[in-house]
């Protein structure tokens, strides 16, 4: 009567999964920290122009976005194909910019207001008329720090 069975030696032993939760948690925390949940769903088609002299914004929390472009396909029957301004989650008129600037400023500390950056995300085929009107409005509101959002290109991109 053998008390000891011979252990099966066929096949590789299973991987030890004891440390799996640790790894998963680590990844989880990484993604939780890096996530910035997109606030606005885009209602305009955006093809950003290319530029080589681009800079990153240091403080992401101080950036507000202004989108300009033709409405997306599913909204074109309603709004046509002319470029429109989108602020937050809705289409806006030029006059709404004023309110938008005031509201965005209220979100921040008074000291931070001069450091706020306004990122203009404009479709590259938009006519400058709209953009100029926005710039004039921003000037009137004393919101002077703007950024023309662009994609990274090396050298002179062909337009």
């Amino acid at each position, binding site marked *: 009567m053998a008390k000891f069975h011979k252990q099966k030696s066929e096949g590789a032993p299973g991987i030890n999964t004891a440390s*799996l*939760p640790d790894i*998963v*948690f680590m*990844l*989880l925390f990484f*993604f*939780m920290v*890096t*996530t*910035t*949940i*997109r606030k606005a769903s885009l209602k305009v088609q955006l093809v950003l*122009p*290319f*530029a*080589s*002299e*681009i*800079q*990153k*914004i240091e403080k*992401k929390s101080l*950036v507000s976005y202004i989108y300009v472009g033709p409405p997306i396909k599913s909204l074109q029957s309603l709004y046509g194909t002319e470029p429109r301004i989108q602020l937050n989650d809705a289409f806006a008129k*030029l006059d709404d910019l004023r309110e938008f600037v005031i509201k965005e400023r209220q979100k921040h500390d008074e000291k931070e207001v001069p450091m706020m*950056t306004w*990122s*203009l995300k*404009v*479709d*590259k*085929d*938009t*006519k*400058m*008329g*709209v*953009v*100029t*009107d926005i*710039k004039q409005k*921003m*000037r*009137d509101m*004393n919101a*002077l*720090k*703007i*950024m*023309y*959002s*662009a*994609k*990274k290109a090396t050298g*002179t*991109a062909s*337009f």
Partner: protein
Amino acid sequence: MADIAFLLLIFFIIATTMDVDRGILRRLPPPLPPDVEKPPPIKERNVFQVLINANNQLMVEGELLDIRNLKNKTKEFIANPADNEDLPEKKPPQNIDLIGIYKVSKGVISLQNDRGTAYGMYLQVQNELTTAYRELRDDFSMQKFGKKYSELDKNHSKAIQEAIPMVISEAEPKNIAGMGKP
């Protein structure tokens, strides 16, 4: 436990947007008070006129120009190493910290576009102008401090900025072609 963590993990992976916002930073001129006097006119030789029309054509100093040549032309204008009569004057020598006596150029770039100009074209011109300034600053910085402009610390880069100030003035757009009305 691991299941819940996995679930959360997948949620955050999907919700993550990794795109960083990049672009060309600009400072708009502050609004003018209504009762301000008109500034004295700038001499013609000190102005580098860049016009973009509604067909996205570029006119520089009265001549049609390909965008690829804009950068070099701008650099030539601002630097004016030979003190050419047609190119901008220099201010009287002044003392700049860390650099010493230097004659700052009086050159101003005047950028004007039509309301019908495409934004892509406008941004490309802005990009070329920025490149021109950046390269000039890089060269000057290399010569003075042996480093690129972007690698300098705050005081040194401030000195360079003072020696080669970026002056791009944007005029109100014209509506010559009658296109792109708001």
